[in-house]
């Protein structure tokens, strides 16, 4: 593999930077491109789910399957846009929007009780067929906290609901792109 930035022209870098709303600096974009090429082992122009799962640190993450659905098959420009929510320059709204998209697995702009329960199950490792008592427990926990916040089991949450709930919580989602 040769020097990666020689395959990425200055025009490309600027185009990607534009696409992600300047969430990353030009050096960071070059670094991300090196990383993209490193993960895209068969040089298909996108990183497949298999290639993502070959990173053990990613594969052991409880939300890996949900994130894979969002990131599988993206080209480099879209890959950077996906990661832009994690830039220190991203706004709180962008971060909340990212979290909303993780919950909203069918992409219809609404998060249901089932979506929230599914994420909770992913994080805690409880599944329908096992640990029946714990599944019932999380169901109850979720119903209770929703109730306390003024929602019901049948509420369909939209982005503005998420903004209201998570708005002033000091959300911290940031990764640092290593620049040589």
């Amino acid at each position, binding site marked *: 593999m040769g020097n990666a930035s020689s395959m990425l022209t200055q025009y490309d870098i600027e185009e990607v930077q534009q696409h992600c709303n300047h969430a990353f600096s030009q050096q960071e974009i070059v670094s991300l491109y090196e990383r993209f090429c490193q993960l895209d082992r068969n040089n298909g122009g996108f990183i497949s789910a298999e290639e993502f799962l070959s990173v*053990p640190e*990613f594969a052991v993450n*409880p*939300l*890996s399957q949900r*994130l894979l659905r969002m990131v599988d098959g993206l080209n480099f420009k879209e890959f950077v846009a996906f990661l832009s929510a994690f830039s220190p320059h991203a706004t709180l709204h962008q971060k909340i929007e990212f979290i909303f998209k993780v919950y909203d697995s069918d992409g219809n702009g609404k998060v249901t009780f089932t979506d929230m329960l599914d994420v909770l199950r992913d*994080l805690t490792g409880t599944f329908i067929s096992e640990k029946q008592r714990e599944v019932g427990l999380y169901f109850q*926990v979720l119903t209770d906290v929703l109730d306390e916040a003024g929602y019901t089991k049948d509420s369909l949450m939209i982005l503005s609901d*998420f903004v209201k709930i998570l708005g002033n919580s000091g959300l911290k989602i940031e*990764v640092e792109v290593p620049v040589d």
Partner: protein
Amino acid sequence: MRSPGQLKSSSSELDLDGPNIEDYLPSGSSIQEPLGKLRLRDLLDISPTLTEAAGAIVDDSFTRCFKSNQPEPWNWNIYLFPLWCFGVVFRYFILFPLRVIVLTIGWIIFLSSFIPVHSLLKGHDKLRKKLEVFVANHTSMIDFIILEQMTAFAVIMQKHPGWVGLLQSTILESVGCIWFNRSEAKDREIVARKLRDHVQGTDNNPLLIFPEGTCVNNHYTVMFKKGAFELGCTVCPVAIKYNKIFVDAFWNSRKQSFTMHLLQLMTSWAVVCDVWYLEPQTLRPGETAIEFAERVRDIISVRAGLKKVPWDGYLKYSRPSPKHRERKQQSFAESVLRRLDEK
């Protein structure tokens, strides 16, 4: 130190009963101890887990171990470029043919004495009577050749296809080498037994084991497999550090075949490396095989200036065991349930 009980030895699961990986992984931002009762925003806030996942996408300590770092190009100006061209001509048309000739003559001499001798005799020199094995960090198959200068070793290695495999089954077998196959399910037990038999046999060559199980790029060490450390004998650590001044000796098996790698080495100026033979170690009382393996890995890494990562080298070939994800999930579940009691 937690040792999680028995091994899972199916071919799809990896045996990761090593030191607790969570001690090494970044978990600074995960689940801060909460105050007060559980609210909706606490349940919806998945940012710590997301940050870890994105962090892994952007950079991770495992992939770093197998990255070949390109050297800075130095032949870019008008004075250095012709010098480099001269160097290329010299290396490819003088050094390389010379080396090939020496190699060919060496092979002719070797084979003309090996084939008759091998079929007549079967014994080896009784060099070692002590029960000891040698362990070293692994960068390329030529590690074996470099260490052969000390004494004839019986090495344990992956069975390869092609001309290397032929070499393995004929010549290397005669010095007592042992094969393993990563992809075979019951392989681990078979190999453990072979190792034990070899060590106990008195007229066998000393055993050389590369506990990492795979080639690493000589800047990091991955976790040592405990097989070599539970044979009940003294372990002599050997540290190998290559100097990349002329060529990078890391065999990136995902990027090039061994033949290409060998050609690359033979057309370079020289392979430069430092080898340290370190003080023999034995199992301390109350120490488990895994702790012993980690202690020896620490000794080797410090001597050769390598950084340690908590990953199993076999993750190059298969997925991590669900055990790790389950541990994370369990700690999250516990923190949620704990907060339920606070009213």
